[in-house]
């Protein structure tokens, strides 16, 4: 099992390295100009946050399709906050984003765990509702870079020791969540629930509370991603983050998170996100027309699922042999 997971994440890392190496050979600017190095690390940070939250939800055998809309809401909220309160400290805005996102996630979680309704349906519904709320709220109005304080915008590209700050935050979040999932009872219970919900109930695990928690986390991280979005792109229209939800799920799947829960790691999901984003940036340089990028992504996803199946089969065989011995 552990070896499978490890080799699973390893697989992505290798693909990633090959990709970056290959692209850099084609154009060394891909890696060796300060901006490209910065962007290489910076661009995935938003999808990374979403993928981590999505992974946690999927591990509990649920799914959250509303993350894209949540991101839009919180991104726009960020803008409005600054317009209303130009002097607002950046930290406060991050907190606001987390809280707002968490609240939206809470709604999903309550509907799913108390209403006993399939997450796919609920979050499909809230995907429309949340998006509609942004559109109504923002209307044709959009937040421009000039509406945001320079300090905040600077954060979008700020680097420490040539590592972008946003990426650092994302990685810290990733590490925290990953550490929790691996070393805390609550974290392991998420896996147990996804692995066999009925056994979890028989066992007396707090299924509802944990599922609720997963959705709140996913929402909160999407909220944080919204703040990232504002800082990075400066312009926020009501269409922000349209369709990101499928990318987040795709990232998790590519990262080896089983769509029916119980296995996979947030590390994998994060790596999946990085690979997804980086491929999109590398293909044009590799001379593959941007129009074919989606096709490549599709192949990537299918490849990932098949790989999972193969690895699973191999372990099963290994364990069977072990039983014979």
């Amino acid at each position, binding site marked *: 099992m552990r070896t499978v997971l490890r080799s699973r994440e390893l697989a992505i890392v290798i693909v990633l390295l090959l990709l970056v190496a290959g692209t850099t050979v084609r154009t060394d600017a891909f890696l060796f100009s300060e901006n490209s190095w910065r962007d290489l690390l910076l661009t995935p940070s938003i999808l990374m946050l979403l993928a981590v939250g999505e992974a946690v939800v999927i591990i509990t055998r649920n*799914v959250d399709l509303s993350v894209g809309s949540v991101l839009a809401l919180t991104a726009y909220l960020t803008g409005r906050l600054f317009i209303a309160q130009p002097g607002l400290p950046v930290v406060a805005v991050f907190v606001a984003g987390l809280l707002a996102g968490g609240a939206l996630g809470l709604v999903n979680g309550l*509907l799913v765990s108390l*209403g*006993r*309704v*399939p997450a*796919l*349906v*609920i979050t*499909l*519904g*809230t*995907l*429309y*509702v949340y*998006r*509609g*709320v*942004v*559109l*109504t709220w923002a209307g044709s109005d959009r937040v421009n870079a000039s509406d945001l304080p320079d300090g905040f915008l600077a954060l979008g590209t700020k680097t420490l020791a040539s590592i972008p700050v946003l990426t650092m935050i994302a990685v810290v979040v990733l590490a925290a969540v990953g550490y929790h999932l691996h070393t805390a009872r609550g974290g392991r219970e998420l896996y147990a629930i996804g692995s066999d*919900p*009925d056994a979890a*109930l*028989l066992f007396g695990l707090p299924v509802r509370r944990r599922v609720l928690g997963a959705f709140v986390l996913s929402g909160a991280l999407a909220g944080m991603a919204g703040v990232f979005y504002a800082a990075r792109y400066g312009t926020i229209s*009501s269409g922000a983050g349209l*369709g990101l939800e*499928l990318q987040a*799920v*795709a990232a998790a*799947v590519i990262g080896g998170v089983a*769509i*029916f829960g119980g296995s996979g790691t947030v590390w994998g999901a994060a790596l999946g996100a990085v690979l997804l984003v980086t491929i999109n940036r590398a293909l044009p340089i590799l001379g593959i*027309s941007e*129009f*074919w*990028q*989606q*096709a*490549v*992504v*599709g*192949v990537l*996803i*299918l490849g990932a*699922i*098949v790989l999972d*199946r193969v690895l699973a089969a191999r372990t099963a065989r290994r364990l069977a042999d072990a039983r014979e011995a």
Partner: protein
Amino acid sequence: MARTYPAHARPLWQRVLLTREMAVVAVLAGVVVYSVARVPNFTGPLTLPYLLLDTAPILLVALPMTLVVATGEIDLSVASVVGLSSVTVGVLVDAGWPVPAAALAALGVGAVCGALNGYLVAYVGLPSLAVTIGTLALFRGIAVGLLGTRAVTDFPDRWTELATARIGQTQLPLVVVPIVVLVAVFAVLLHLTPFGRGIYDIGLSTDAAHFSGVAVARTKLVLFVLTAAVAAFAGVFFTLRYGTARGDNATGLELQVVAAVLLGGVSIFGGRGALHGVVAGVLLIGVLSSALRLENVTVNVINIIIGALLVASVLSTSVLGWLVRRRQHSPLAPAQPQPGREER
């Protein structure tokens, strides 16, 4: 021994009226009545044809999707198949093919897409949610890749006119004919054939179906192929109606279709749902949007209403179902068909 049984526990009217589907039909009727009475210009001659033309692609794709969801699977790649089919028609017509030939080729492409989905899900045994998210990107990518910046628009007029033509003197668009035919076909297939019974069995308990000699894998494969083929047909219609073949045609349609199917009362876990519910679901979304637009309600409010409607509808069923189950089963019985853990 000579014991006899009534065929039904409840009287006919209850069985017909007290169903999830009828609830949707009722709501639809309500909305229509209200709109006719209150919404300005709703009674105009243009409302019906526009409604049908606009909902046609969703309605078409929702039919086979209903069967797929009834087996407990899902196909998120349909919109991309619509796009790919549209591009296929465009490219071929551009290359001088006659429209009918190009359309046939598009259907073929659709079938191939469906076969890929079906094979990966039914025979390799991969989860359809993940697979079709993958093929969603793949098929769309191929569609966009094939045409790039180009948009083929030079279709022979008689074909584009055919797509929006009316039947005789009526206001009904011609596309109603294939829709009615397909609705009939799928209704019979799902509700009046052994194949359809098999679909429900698979959705309720794949094991039991397998043990009773239902060809589970083949059934699923067939359904995925059907779905993609119909999606391809919708793509041909889409292309001719708008007279333009573009890679990004019908982007996002998949979620509208799934929403309509679920709104129509099909259980995402499979095994429950009926076609008239789905048709009502599609029309409900269509009528609602059309009426709200006539009231100059903006598109975002429309989205909110539809989303809320979806959530409310599932909540209501699940809560009802849960109450019923609470009376029958152990308090543990989950929303899914009860896993047979009780003995052993």
